[in-house]
């Protein structure tokens, strides 16, 4: 027992006296979580909750204008300011200027007589289809088409533009359908004398959105819920720098020769390092969770949602496996690399690449099919998938059993390769 305590004490002292290593282990991930959450918050808010400010210049002041305004308002995505040229002494040019300055994301212009023109077109169509009706037909062939104009903030991306245009198109189509139905109802009344005050049941087929999973009423991930797990994993795997550095230091400084000449097996000494760095991984995770729960809300960021203590226990256990995989990888790099420079460059670059392909930098759902396949090779991808299940879906450890197996296999294989390499090098 004294032996174990002594070895652990040595490894812990070495970590806590390495100021650069400490900064890399604790300060870097804290900064990353804070900065990346702040940076990505607007994007996540746009997806989740923050309303998009739009301005509607309604010169129609009739059914089309009113319906578009009502439907956009009811979607709860937009914060709408409705103006019209006469009442608010604002013209279309002013509205465009406001959008250009970024005060509104878009301006929607509904020109005068849009509803009237639409009604005229419908009426004309009915008369063409029912020429025997005893009513006057306009002889003039005037173009009654109206054009609703949308002016976008130049920084708006094309996906957002497309979705707005299709939403407006959908609303206009609904209004048109209602007006066509009303006009036909009126015409039929003329023919049959029967009154029908019903509106067209336009929403008879509805789409209901539901989130799959235990906590289906849970909100979509916030920037905090994405960034805290993602950068925790990144930080855990970055133990490659201090851990491989320690192993190479022992090789270069001759400590390894002294250690190997003692009755204690080198594997035993390696396992002490693995244990200490896995412990560091767990501490890192809980510090970052603490940042997510207590610090981020202080800077107006969304709070990290931890549902219960059971979830925390699952996080602790899963993090242990991430820590083991990261430690194994670090031991391997430290064993193979010839010097600290080599280990630092290869170690950090490999982690950045594995993070990039694993969905830490860029979420995997924006990757193409090839990259999706490649991403599955990254241990950081196994880790983030597991964390998503535990953090966001509040699933139990059984749901991440394959991730745990993969991380464990990575740990065992990297340690075995390191031991084999060590023995080979000895000869």
């Amino acid at each position, binding site marked *: 027992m004294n032996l174990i305590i*002594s070895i652990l004490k040595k490894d812990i002292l070495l970590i806590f006296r390495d100021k650069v290593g400490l900064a890399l282990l604790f300060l870097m991930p804290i900064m990353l979580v804070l900065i990346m959450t702040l940076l990505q918050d607007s994007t996540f808010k746009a997806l989740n909750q923050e309303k998009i400010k739009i301005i509607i210049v309604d010169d129609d002041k009739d059914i089309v204008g009113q319906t578009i305004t009502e439907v956009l308002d009811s979607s709860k995505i937009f914060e709408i300011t409705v103006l019209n040229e006469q009442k608010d002494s604002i013209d279309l040019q002013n509205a465009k200027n406001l959008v250009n300055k970024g005060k509104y994301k878009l301006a929607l212009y509904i020109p005068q007589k849009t509803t009237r023109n639409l009604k005229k077109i419908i009426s004309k169509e009915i008369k063409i289809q029912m020429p025997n009706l005893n009513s006057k037909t306009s002889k003039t062939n005037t173009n009654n088409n109206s054009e609703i104009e949308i002016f976008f903030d130049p920084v708006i991306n094309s996906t957002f533009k497309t979705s707005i245009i299709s939403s407006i198109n959908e609303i206009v189509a609904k209004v048109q359908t209602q007006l066509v139905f009303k006009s036909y109802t009126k015409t039929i009344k003329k023919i049959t004398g029967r009154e029908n005050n019903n509106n067209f049941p336009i929403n008879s087929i509805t789409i209901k959105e539901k989130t799959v999973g235990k906590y289906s009423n849970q909100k979509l991930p916030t920037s905090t819920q994405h960034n805290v797990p993602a950068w925790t994993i990144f930080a855990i795997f970055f133990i490659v720098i201090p851990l491989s550095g320690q192993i190479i230091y022992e090789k270069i400084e001759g400590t390894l020769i002294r250690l190997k000449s003692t*009755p204690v097996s080198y594997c035993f000494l390696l396992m002490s390092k693995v244990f200490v760095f896995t412990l560091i991984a767990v501490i890192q995770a809980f510090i970052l969770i603490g940042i997510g729960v207590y610090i981020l809300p202080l800077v107006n960021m969304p709070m990290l949602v931890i549902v219960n203590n059971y979830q925390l226990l699952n996080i602790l256990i899963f993090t242990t496996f991430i820590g083991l995989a990261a430690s194994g990888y670090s031991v391997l790099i430290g064993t193979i690399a010839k010097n600290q420079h080599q280990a630092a460059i290869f170690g950090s670059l490999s982690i950045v690449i594995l993070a990039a392909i694993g969905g830490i930098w860029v979420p995997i759902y924006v990757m193409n099919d090839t990259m999706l396949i490649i991403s599955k090779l990254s241990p950081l991808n196994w880790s983030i998938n597991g964390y998503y299940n535990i953090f966001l879906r509040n699933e139990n450890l059984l749901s991440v059993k394959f991730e745990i197996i993969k991380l464990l296999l990575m740990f065992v294989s990297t340690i075995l390769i390191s031991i084999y390499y060590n023995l080979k090098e000895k000869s």
Partner: protein
Amino acid sequence: MENLIDIKNLTKTYKGSNIPALNNFSISINDGINGILGPNGAGKTTLINILTGIIKNFNGDIKCLNYKLPSEIKKIKPLIGIVPQEIALYQELTAMENLNFFSSLYKLNKQSNSENIKEFLQQLGLYERRNDKIKTYSGGMKRRVNLICGLLHKPKLLFLDEPTVGVDVQSKKVILDFLKNLNQEGTNIIYTSHLIDDVQFLCNNVYIIDNGSLIDYGQTNDLINKHQNCENLEDVFIKLTGKALRDN
């Protein structure tokens, strides 16, 4: 009486090399302070690495402290100490922390171990600075702590690889006197060095090796007397190994 070390027909060739580091090497080493001399690449470090169990893959028969290598290395390890040429210490730890850690690997009695550490630190003039980090020490002080680390478990046989390299005259004298005392108290020493004066001062027996083979050996004074026109060990060494450079 059994020899300290018995080596018969030892051959070691590293992977990727055609030239053996040790070639059909045979040697018997007795109690006392034994110096192993040889130019760079002669095979000294390979020999020590084999004897301390760091290299396990070789041909030949070796007995160290009456145990066979490599099969009985576990029995040998507690009986040997090693002081490598490098300062094999953790620079960020204090002298006490280093000594406590390395001694713990031999599972020693805590009380007697603490007394040993204190005694060695006092003998080598380090006790006052025992709680300072190694990185704040001078080269000579680091060498002395390096030496103590190899001695804490009171080994029967101590391997010393260039223990006085880069130290000032005072530190060197302290180290060499300490080693003489240590031997008088029963610790056998195998000492390799480029500093031939140190070997001549310290060692009872000298073994000169070159190109992986033993080329001459004997008691230090006998060896000097044996070779004509040689006034000291350095003359003998140059006579036997030549003046050609070995490190290019």
